[in-house]
């Protein structure tokens, strides 16, 4: 089973006096949903970029199935907060982008793109232009585009950060559906405490100065949803509220009140 692993990774950007992240280790298996949370400046996105191969660690190592990560690759597809879609392409062509790069014939990649659009519940939006879609629909296209690359892992950098609260809530269950259907490992960065609880199988709490892990929570709420339990019932569970309080404490631990 392939693992995406960070081993004592330190990230130090050029011209910065202190590292952004110091000696952080993570291990994500296929089927895990790991969520990074923490206050601004704790290096969440830096870690995600190291896993993506977009940022090289100053020390330590990132590995994919045991092999060092030196560049981005379709085995670790990234979805960004600002969808980063291509406005000159239709929704379908955006989704098919990774297939086009591989030289998949046009009819075959259109068929696959339509399947993926259906998976993210955008059955009839294939011919739409990107600017005709709402923020939530764009993020669905972004997710479908990432899944088209047939990744082992999805790296999500605050994918729901730019959405309104209601859309965001609906997208959280969509993410869980995709995670279950696509059988991928997920590494996600978010600012949302409830979002982390709803989605994660593991929540890693980071603190700044330089970024380090303060606590790790093993959670099961996302798995319960994937197993069929309604999301409202899960959120109403006393365990949910209790974990939420612990998580909030962990995030703000050490910060002057």
């Amino acid at each position, binding site marked *: 089973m392939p693992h995406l692993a960070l081993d004592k990774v330190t990230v130090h950007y050029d011209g910065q006096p202190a590292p952004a992240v110091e000696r952080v280790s993570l291990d994500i298996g296929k089927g895990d949903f790991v969520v990074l949370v923490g206050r601004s400046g704790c290096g969440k996105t830096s870690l995600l970029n190291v896993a*993506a191969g*977009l940022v090289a660690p100053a020390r330590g190592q990132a590995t994919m199935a045991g092999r060092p990560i030196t560049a981005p690759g379709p085995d670790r597809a*990234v979805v*960004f907060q600002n969808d*980063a879609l291509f406005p000159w392409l239709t929704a379908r062509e955006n989704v098919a*982008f*990774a297939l086009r790069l591989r030289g998949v014939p046009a009819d075959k990649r259109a068929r696959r793109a339509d399947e993926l659009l259906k998976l993210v519940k955008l059955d009839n939006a294939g011919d739409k*232009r990107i600017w005709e879609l709402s923020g939530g629909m764009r993020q669905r296209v972004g997710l479908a585009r990432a899944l*088209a690359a047939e990744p082992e892992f999805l790296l999500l950098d605050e994918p729901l950060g730019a959405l309104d609260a209601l859309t965001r809530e609906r997208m959280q269950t969509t993410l869980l559906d995709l995670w279950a259907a696509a059988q991928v490992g997920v590494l996600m960065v978010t600012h949302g405490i409830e979002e982390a609880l709803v989605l994660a199988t593991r929540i890693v709490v980071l603190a700044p100065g330089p970024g380090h892990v303060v606590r790790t929570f093993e959670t099961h709420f996302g798995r319960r949803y994937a197993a069929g339990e309604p999301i409202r019932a899960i959120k109403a569970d006393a365990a949910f509220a209790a974990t939420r309080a612990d998580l909030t404490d962990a995030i703000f631990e050490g910060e002057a009140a």
Partner: protein
Amino acid sequence: MSVGTYTERPAAKTGENDWLSVPWSRPRPKRAGVSARLISALTILALLAAWTVSAELRLVSPVFLPSPAAVWAKLVVAARDGFVDATLAQHITASLSRVFAALVVAIVVGVPVGLAIGISKVGRGVFDPLLESLRPIPPLAYLPLIVIWFGIGEPSKILVIAIAMLAPVALSTAAGVRGVSRERIDAARSLGATRGQVVRHVVLPSALPSILTGLRIALGAGWSTLVAAELVAATRGLGFMIQSAAQFLVTDVVMMGILVIATIAFALEFIIRRIEHALVPWTGRQ
């Protein structure tokens, strides 16, 4: 104009908006568009009226300011019988083909150069100073050199115009390339794009709006240079026609030539904007 409330409008209606606004933007009260056009039309009419009055009253000698009627008459004569051995259509064709040949040269050279400036340090180091020093030189200054090097044939004329077009095309391309969002490139790379694929599938399309703007500016520069280019050994062309007329103080032909160039430049501008709407409809709407 608020963002986020775009309503779709049929493309045919885009002409109603002024050029700064976006075709799918919120429909504005119709009168705003009409009155702007009306003001333009009235301005032109007022200028024509002032011109007619001063010419008719002989406020200015016809040698300096021929009447609109005289200019119109010259247009008809030039179109039918020609002026200096060529009809107006032949002059226009000669000038247009020079400008467009030069535009092709400027695109073929300028877009790759702009791309190199935008994506590589070496490219920027090599081409940026060259372009920046070439840009302010007036065409009349390098015209003699071009003639010495390449003779007095058609290639020299095209080259003079192309040099004037090169900087706007290359610099607009470079600006467009540098403006491509980091996330778009990173997303493409994480989907498996090689460096070449990133350039072809992400950087170039992202830079297209900027490149098209560059072409529009380049066409303007090209028309400005046309007269200089046709100074040397031309037998046809609007610039040549104007210069020949000027030597014999045929002011009505000079004015007719100027108005023809203005009309053509205006029409080309309109066409390019149409092309922009068709090719890069996403501009300003992300």
